[in-house]
């Protein structure tokens, strides 16, 4: 049982809490000879694979390091330009490390506010009257369960696809939210959740669920 992350979105669509639980690290390091068998795309903020995936280097993966030196946007830590380095035949062989791009906090906030209209449109485009918004969203790699409380706060859990009982878990998280966040006198509504007790209890809950299954809570 693997849970990848928990998100809490406020009534107005802002991300107020996020926890990355068990996100697998996808990294590949390969020693390459000239010319590269895949083509790279050089953007100001990152160097990514544009075409030709093989041996774990997939399209969309970003360049992390060259010969063990970390990449920082389009330049290396020591100031050398990555494009020049890679396109020059004399520098080979090169050891390149790629990884699946990690979401930054900004991107997470962006995604959370993107879910809000999707949720609303799903209920508007419904062929049956009185439909709720998205409750389960499934892709081939994960399943997202969403639970909206009566007050409009959305709880989301991203987990493996074959995972029954996520709605029970969501309700448990809601309980924790009610106990440790709403009863915290220093917490103001709609603001990001920074409550230590909530963090520790949620972490403990997720670990318990992962170890003993959903029936244990």
């Amino acid at each position, binding site marked *: 049982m693997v849970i990848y*992350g928990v998100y809490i979105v406020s009534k107005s669509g802002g991300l107020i809490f996020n926890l990355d639980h068990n996100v697998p690290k996808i990294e590949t390091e390969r020693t390459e000879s000239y010319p590269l068998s895949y083509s790279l795309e050089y953007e100001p903020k990152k160097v990514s694979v544009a075409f030709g995936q093989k041996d774990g280097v997939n399209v969309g993966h970003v360049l992390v390091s060259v010969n063990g030196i970390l990449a920082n946007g389009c330049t290396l830590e020591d100031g050398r330009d990555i494009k020049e380095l890679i396109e020059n035949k004399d520098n080979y062989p090169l050891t390149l490390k790629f990884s699946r791009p990690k979401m930054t906090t900004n991107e997470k906030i962006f995604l959370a506010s993107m879910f809000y209209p999707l949720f609303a449109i799903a209920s508007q*485009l419904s*062929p*049956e*009257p*009185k439909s709720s918004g998205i409750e389960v*969203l499934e*892709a081939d790699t*994960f399943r997202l369960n969403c639970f909206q409380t009566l007050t409009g706060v959305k709880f989301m859990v*991203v987990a493996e696809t074959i995972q029954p009982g996520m709605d029970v878990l969501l309700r448990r998280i809601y309980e924790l939210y009610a106990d440790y966040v709403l009863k915290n006198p220093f917490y103001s509504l709609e603001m990001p959740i920074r409550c230590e007790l909530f963090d520790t209890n949620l972490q403990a809950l997720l670990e318990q669920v992962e170890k003993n299954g959903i029936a244990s809570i």
Partner: protein
Amino acid sequence: MIYNLYIFDKYGTLMYYSEWNRLKQSGITKDEEAKLMYGMLFSLKSFVNKISPIDPKEGFLFYKTNKYALHYVEVSSGLKFVLNTDTTATGIKDFLLQLYSKIWVEYVVRNPLWTIGTPVTSDLFKTKLDEFVRASPLFGPKII
């Protein structure tokens, strides 16, 4: 129970729309509804690709609300099939791929009078599609 079906091409043009047991209209014109639907799918796809913890292959498959489920199949040419069913229906992906190979390819792609990128108006396609959907065990009232 099958509610309705949308077919979009890779540019987001509504190629075909049909409905069977639809109980609620969205209150906007079909044209606007199609744009809204395509916009939502486009966002859903990018949402799924970003939030996915590992590299996705097919990406978005379906979503469910408490009343209906929306299933999504995209073929490599960018043609998109969107089918709304009740929440208990299963095996929709196979059904849509069958629909693509048996109905779309046969009666649209092999129709010399159809120009790529324009909505399908062929009556033959319409009847065959209707037959195909009605013959499916997925059609008909919800089994509770």
